[in-house]
């Protein structure tokens, strides 16, 4: 099948492919050495990829030069004699031991205690038994709302059909309880629970920006352009599309979230800036076992 002539041709092909691989690899080094040329990433990938492709082709073409025939072999089977011998070896080694139960019990106790001792330091990883910190937020009555740059947020800055993100003044904006979403609705359309009537001055509403389903930031505000035919305003999480109704106190209207979005009471100070009127209506962020569902669920 592989006569001397076709074999010689295959040898030449392999040599040519290996040479081409060398050229491509040298090209990679050249492209790497040339600083700030256009499309450097693309050229690097192209030269290195081509070098490997040539190598692959060389090996595939070279198979004909060395390839042997099919061969046969027997599947081995289990070796019960050897397994039994292992068992016998272990059994015989213990023939001199008489108080087996005592030793086994003591061994188990030592193993369990040492295992527990080695596992105990894991508790240092985090406040494993302090779940109260999970419900804490920096919001307090009277705390001013600030934007990303730290400037106070004026009530007049919150316009209809837009949302603003605000943080508590002087607190860490990276805490899960910090970011809130601010929107303005027509006060006549609000259907907040009776206890929250004063929470939305001028129809300005503040909710935790963290979705109660999986903790992503509520980054979408569905603001109907023509109320009579479109869906009502909704605060939407882009991760799993939980949708909350801002007019009714953040109740879930669609999606997998199981709790209402916690609302933050607002008031407007004498300078016209927004301040917190208290703390959130419920725990911020994703739920965990034992968490209160919050006052807005009714």
């Amino acid at each position: 099948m592989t006569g001397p002539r076709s074999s010689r041709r295959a040898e030449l092909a392999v040599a040519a492919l290996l040479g081409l691989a060398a050229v491509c690899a040298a090209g990679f080094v050249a492209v790497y050495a040339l600083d700030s040329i256009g499309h450097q990433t693309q050229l690097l990938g192209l030269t290195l990829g081509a070098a490997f492709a040539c190598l692959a082709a060389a090996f595939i073409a070279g198979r004909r030069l060395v390839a042997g025939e099919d061969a046969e072999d027997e599947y081995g089977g289990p070796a019960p004699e050897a397994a039994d011998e292992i068992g016998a070896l272990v059994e015989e080694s213990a023939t001199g031991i008489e108080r087996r139960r005592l030793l086994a019990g003591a061994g188990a106790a030592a193993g369990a205690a040492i295992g527990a001792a080695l596992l105990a330091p894991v508790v240092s990883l985090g406040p494993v038994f302090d779940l109260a910190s999970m419900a804490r937020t920096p919001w307090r009555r009277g705390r001013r709302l600030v934007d990303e740059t730290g400037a106070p947020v004026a009530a007049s800055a919150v316009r209809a059909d837009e949302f603003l993100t605000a943080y508590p003044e002087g607190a860490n904006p990276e805490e899960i309880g910090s970011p809130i979403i601010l929107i303005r609705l027509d006060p006549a359309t609000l259907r907040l629970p009776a206890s929250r009537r004063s929470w939305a001055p001028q129809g300005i509403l503040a909710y935790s920006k963290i979705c109660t389903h999986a903790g992503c930031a509520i980054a979408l505000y569905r603001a109907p352009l023509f109320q009579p035919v479109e869906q009502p305003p909704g605060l939407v999480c882009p991760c799993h599309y939980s949708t909350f109704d801002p007019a009714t106190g953040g109740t879930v209207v669609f999606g997998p979230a199981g709790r209402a979005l916690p609302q933050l009471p607002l008031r407007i100070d004498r300078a016209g800036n927004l301040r917190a009127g208290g703390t959130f209506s419920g725990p911020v962020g994703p739920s965990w076992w034992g968490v209160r569902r919050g006052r807005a669920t009714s």
Partner: protein
Amino acid sequence: MVGRAPRKGDVVIRGAARTVDERTHAAPFGLKALRYLFPEHWTFLLGEVALYTFIVLIATGTYLALFFHPSTAQVVYHGSYAPLDGMRMTEAYRSTVHLSLDVRAGLLMRQTHHWAADVFVAAIAIHLMRIVFTGAFRKPRELTYYVGLTILTLALLEGYLGYSLVDDLLSGMGLAIGYAVALSIPFVGANIGQLIWGGPFPGTPDFWSRMYIAHVFLLPLLIATLIALHLTLVASLHHTQFGGGRRTERRLVGLPAFPSQVPRSLGLMFAVFAALFLLGGLVEINPIWLWGPYHVGDGTNGAQPDWYLGWLIGALRLMPAFDVTVLDYTVIPNPFWGGVLFPGIVFGTLFAWPSIERRVSGDRARHNLLDRPRDVRWRTATATAFLSWLFLIFLAGSADRAYVLFGWSYETQLQVYRVLVFVLPPTVFWLTLKVCDELRRNEEVVRNRHEAETEARAAAHRT
């Protein structure tokens, strides 16, 4: 060959082999390894693709680790990428943008690493399908199968940690979801979340050190060890093979490792390297400088994870609002269903499958010959139904993209998916049974015709 006068090069090789053997006594083992037989069918190369991809992952990942800073220290960006200038971000994100845009060959390595991760999981998944559809997991190879499944589980976790470490906007959203899923575990979730993150989300700076050591040391070491164990088991029991010809349950036929399989396998290895570096150089993936840094209060629309986590985001999105509650208290929050129970069912079924099948079929014999999928119709049908269920949930995870692309209402799509996940798998099950039967009937027709023709020809010859 023995009788031929050795060439000059041969003498050198023999000398080298003897020198090594005198110091290792490994020649008998080496000879056995060189004579090990590989089946010729192409599907036996799927696992090799995963193996060679893992090599690329280690190589490119090591290069990235030379430039990446696993730190949550807040810095202000003043690098070469103008749109991010003046933005507050973590050192982790800044160093990743820097290694992508300012380090020569950095972006090639990062993109190749990301592509390789996607290909690694894909190669394992397709390899797993071949194993399931042909019954290769049966006795005596159950352990090999369990080890392989464990590698797949760890690969998913490893990939998730990899793109979480970057701390771009998508990383942060993914970690937020991971935290919520951890929290959703009944009775211990909150404590587990506090342990892993070191406190409430987004956690303490220690959390980044933990992710880093897991991503660059613990998980790769574990995966590498399990790969070694997997291959040892494969070699110890020998490869399976498809029946036919001289191949029987007792006799295996294949290409010896040397000289036949080595060039074949090396050719495949370099082809995998070529494909991955071409992808890494030419096809953009995860351009993190466009996403921007993550902050707890930031999110973006149309966020999609890497493909191998698409089934999980699909499950989280598909699940209707349903928490187990007692009075005003939550017991099981919603992310548990899609984030814990669903993958638990999927991997639980996969791990239990050899035992389930043994119980259902009563087959406890040893098998070296593979099944053809059509011949074991109920297994094939179960597998295709299971796959269709997974694929549907995977698709549901991209309903928001379908909304943007085609304008289909997101809510309506989800309602349709919620029905389909119950309707489609039984339909696929039934269809697969029909297809298997049809294929077998066709074979019988062809065989009968062939026999009849041979007979007729023989009869014509006689007359």
